[in-house]
């Protein structure tokens, strides 16, 4: 199968030829030709201003009565006694979707020894119903048991949409849930909307963040998506009411083949990059490991975490747990300071979702400035100490 070309509409302008990442489109004098290299990625479809290109339809799969599915669900991630912030963000987004559809919003809370106030927190953040499953087998996360329980609940209650955080937990076990339910899943969404027909419009970055793609799951339910943390804003309203239910599930859901031997929380709190509200990152411009000290000093001053580019990690100046980018962590803090980082695309895709980006680099042509909110062309060894002095002065520490 290849991209479909409407020869009536095609003006042979050639724009699609340049856009195709797979060199699958060639221009002849009178038409365009699509070769077998076409992967149906869809890059060309949106760039064609004449509407001459389209993708063939996806398979309908075995028929399913879509109207039997109702309600929006959010998987509330419980870790170390707390609910992950992304779950509250998803509840506020889920609330909007549920209201547009005129359906209830439900949260699913799985764990063991759950604090009774957690379900009410979920209600205050928008849930109408909270399903709570509290079992010793859920004390530690495994894809199997967490997946089985969520699959069983979905089979029983049939929601039309399920949202989960694109955390290490969500990205790990939600694919199992989708596969068991034989439905589509879109990973790492940054934007959600709903069409009048009730199709969840799931927008996510692709090709390393170079393009955005909107994806739908037309023929299967529930429509499932994982959503990046810190993209949506949580909304809390005290006094909201809702109900809490504890469904009983078949025993076989709780049987695990995998045994959890040990859970070791990360000692180095500064490495909790994905959670941080402020991140100060250093790159090759620091020139040696010892110079990371000024990054650490600044990070401490602004109560932020320390990040790094792949270059700095590859040099061995800082452990890989600090790496931001495609092969490291994806972060989206309120403030991201890139210091001595050139801004290779592989770094940029890991931090471009940040609210305010400050770039400090000597090279005015450094690509990092393309994504910066504020750019400073300066020698970091002059600028960062001056900036630190400024903060200390203002706080009366100097």
């Amino acid at each position: 199968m290849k991209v479909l070309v409407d020869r009536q509409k095609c003006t042979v302008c050639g724009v699609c030829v340049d856009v195709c990442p797979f060199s699958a489109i060639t221009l002849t004098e009178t038409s365009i030709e699509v070769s077998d290299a076409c992967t149906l990625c869809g890059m060309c479809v949106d760039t064609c201003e004449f509407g001459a290109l389209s993708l063939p339809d996806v398979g309908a799969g075995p028929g399913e009565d879509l109207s039997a599915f109702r309600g929006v669900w959010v998987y509330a991630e419980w870790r170390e006694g707390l609910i992950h912030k992304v779950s509250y963000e998803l509840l506020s987004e889920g609330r909007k979707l549920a209201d547009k559809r005129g359906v209830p919003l439900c949260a699913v809370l799985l764990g063991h020894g759950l604090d009774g106030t957690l379900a009410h927190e979920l209600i205050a953040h928008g849930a109408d119903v909270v399903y709570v499953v509290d079992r010793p087998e859920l004390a530690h996360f495994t894809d199997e048991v967490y997946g089985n329980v969520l699959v069983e609940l979905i089979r029983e209650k049939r929601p039309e949409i399920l949202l989960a955080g694109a955390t290490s937990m969500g990205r790990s076990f939600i694919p199992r849930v989708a596969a068991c339910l034989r439905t589509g899943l879109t990973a790492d969404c940054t934007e959600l909307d709903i069409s009048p027909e009730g199709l969840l419009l799931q927008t996510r970055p692709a090709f390393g963040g170079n393009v955005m793609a909107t994806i739908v799951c037309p023929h299967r339910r529930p429509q499932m998506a994982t959503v990046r943390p810190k993209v949506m804003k949580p909304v809390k309203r005290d006094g909201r009411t809702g109900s809490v239910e504890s469904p009983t599930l078949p025993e076989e859901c709780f049987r695990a083949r995998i045994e959890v031997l040990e859970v070791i929380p990360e000692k180095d709190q500064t490495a909790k990059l994905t959670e941080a509200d402020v991140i100060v990152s250093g790159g090759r411009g620091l020139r040696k490991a010892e110079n990371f000290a000024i990054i650490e000093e600044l990070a401490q001053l602004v109560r932020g975490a320390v990040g790094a580019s792949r270059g700095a990690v590859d040099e061995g100046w800082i452990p890989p747990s600090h790496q931001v980018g495609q092969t490291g962590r994806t972060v989206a803090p309120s403030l991201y300071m890139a210091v001595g980082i050139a801004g290779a695309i592989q770094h940029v895709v890991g931090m471009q979702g940040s609210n305010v980006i400050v770039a400090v680099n000597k090279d005015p042509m450094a690509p990092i400035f393309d994504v910066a909110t504020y750019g400073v062309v300066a020698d970091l060894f002059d600028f960062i100490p001056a900036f630190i002095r400024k903060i200390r002065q203002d706080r009366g520490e100097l």
Partner: protein
Amino acid sequence: MHIVVCIKQVPDTKNVRIDPDTHTLVRQGVESIVNPFDFFAVEAALKIKDERDARVTVLTMGPPQAEEALREVLSRGVDDAVLLSDRAFAGSDTWATSTTLAAAIRKLGDVDLILCGKQAIDGDTAQVGPETATMLNIPYATFAKKIEPMDDRHLKITRQTDEGVEVWKVPLPALVTVIKEVGEPRMPSLRHKMRAKKASIPLWGIQDLGLAPESVGLAGSYTQVVRVFSPPRRGNRLMIQGSVEEQAERLYRLLKESKVPGL
């Protein structure tokens, strides 16, 4: 022990840029490469092979030219390769890809361990590993940083999560996705390079896998791309001028005014 490594040939996205004027993808100099994370999966397999009797087969689904990716991996010391290629596979989402890989793994038969990179850099979904394992009804562990055989039938897996590290005992057969901490991929050796060049690589299509055309490729996919567009460009970049002192002062004031935390 028979280990299968699933790999993917991807465009080298780190060299891909959007032309700021035309908003189109600048393709110049973008080559097809083996997904970087998959080299870590290959390395993890070879490490096990270094220490015990193991055979490693590398598997990929892709266009005919994905054969180059298989040869690249063979040159690192992998024993065999199989290419899954068929026009019917085009347009696969993660579900259809997993369906195809699972069918190939069933056909291989005696597989003890399946290794994958944590995700591919073109789609970044991290879904194909877990979905394939689920279809094969075997346990899986994601984001592994260390794989240690415990006995013939179990692995000790150390996995990295957002909160820290978890150690799991995983019975075989199982699927494991790995991160870069499993070890620096070894370079191709001359001997393996020669072998890789000559190796005959079987090609399996839908008929070989016993799959129906409607269960693979776009027809067998549940998700559909309806729109592709350039990410919105940040328009409000402000370059801060002046001496270093002035720059520090101005940046500090701007950040204060925009009420970012920490300042």
